[in-house]
């Protein structure tokens, strides 16, 4: 935990954008807006990208909070990316943070789709549009791989058997057996509730 706080401090010092200031809200809006505008895919795609920005680049929030929020966002009804952005915004800067992140998440699709709705045929069958989207998809893939591997590395570094087993089990269940993430999350929550209450797992 201390280590994480230290990392957080380092990152804040490095980029020097303090949460709560006017400049912070502008940077938060801009980066969330652009990520939402350029990311093709649902919650599990956009969240690693936001994590890369908020945690690794700016240090506004830590790994643990991001993972907690992702899990809760997955379990609540509604659009997962929106749920996550609401809670991430609140964690970083209270209600103002929520307003900024929710607006920045929802506006880009609202604008793009409104435009596309009028030019559907032009858009859906245009080779160059397809290639731009394809390129952005590859870019997002690189970030997700990086975020995923980084989190796996940290998980193994803690050298606790049960969390590693949970991750491995969930990975196999969702990849090989196509188990709905909702059920994975539910089962893992119960396992956590019963077996991971020892403070060493916090």
């Amino acid at each position, binding site marked *: 935990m201390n280590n994480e706080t230290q990392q957080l401090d380092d990152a804040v010092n490095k980029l020097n954008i303090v949460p709560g200031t006017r400049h912070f809200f502008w940077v938060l809006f801009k980066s969330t807006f652009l990520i939402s505008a350029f990311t093709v895919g649902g919650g599990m795609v956009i969240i690693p990208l936001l994590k890369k920005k908020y945690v690794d680049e700016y240090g506004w929030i830590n790994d643990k909070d991001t993972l907690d929020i992702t899990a809760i966002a997955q379990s609540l009804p509604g659009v997962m990316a929106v749920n996550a952005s*609401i809670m991430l915004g609140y964690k970083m800067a209270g209600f103002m943070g929520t307003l900024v992140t929710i607006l920045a998440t929802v506006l*880009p699709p609202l604008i793009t789709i409104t435009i596309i709705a009028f030019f559907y045929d032009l858009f859906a069958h245009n080779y160059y549009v397809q290639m731009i989207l*394809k390129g952005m998809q590859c870019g997002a893939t690189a970030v997700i791989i990086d975020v995923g591997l980084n989190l796996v590395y940290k998980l193994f570094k803690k050298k606790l058997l049960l969390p590693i087993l949970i991750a491995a089990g969930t990975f196999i269940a969702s990849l090989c057996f196509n188990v709905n993430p909702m059920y994975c999350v539910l089962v893992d929550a119960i396992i956590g509730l019963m077996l991971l209450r020892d403070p060493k797992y916090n």
Partner: protein
Amino acid sequence: MNILLLLYWEFCKIGLFCVGGGYASLPWIQAAVVDNYHWITMTEFIDIFTISQMTPGPIGINAATFVGTKIAGTPGAIVATLGFVTPSLILCLLITYLMKKYGELSAIKGTLNGLRPAVVALICTAGLSFIWLSVWNTESVPTNFADFDIKGIIILLIAMIAVKKKVSVITLLFGSGVAGLVLGLLM
């Protein structure tokens, strides 16, 4: 009833009942706007599904915007999206409040300790299916690994080097889009 109010209310209900991510919201939207109110046809709905998948942004929001536009123009799009996120906003803020109040309980901490590794695994699964999509243009495990997309591999490799060089996420996404266009023109 005013169409905008009705639209808002219908999407509020969808936002409240759809659990489990973007795709899960589509059957709910279909039930309301195609089957119940006949605002749009099934063909249009399939178009919406395709568009929502291939454009940036969460699928659910894309679909709500598209349906709203079809039914009542831009005001419809805004109202449908607002309706969709209203339940999320209330529930998420409520949960945040409860977490603040009860987050220190060992039961809550234990539950979250179980959820964190799960999320790591789910992000890895998403990463893997995105590799299939980028390199082999398929959503599940490729049946023929030799049938890869060379453009996808090139962009993915460059992007991975860029990530290691700590290029900002947004520059990376933008650059990858440009790279896709350039490769599309060249090859």
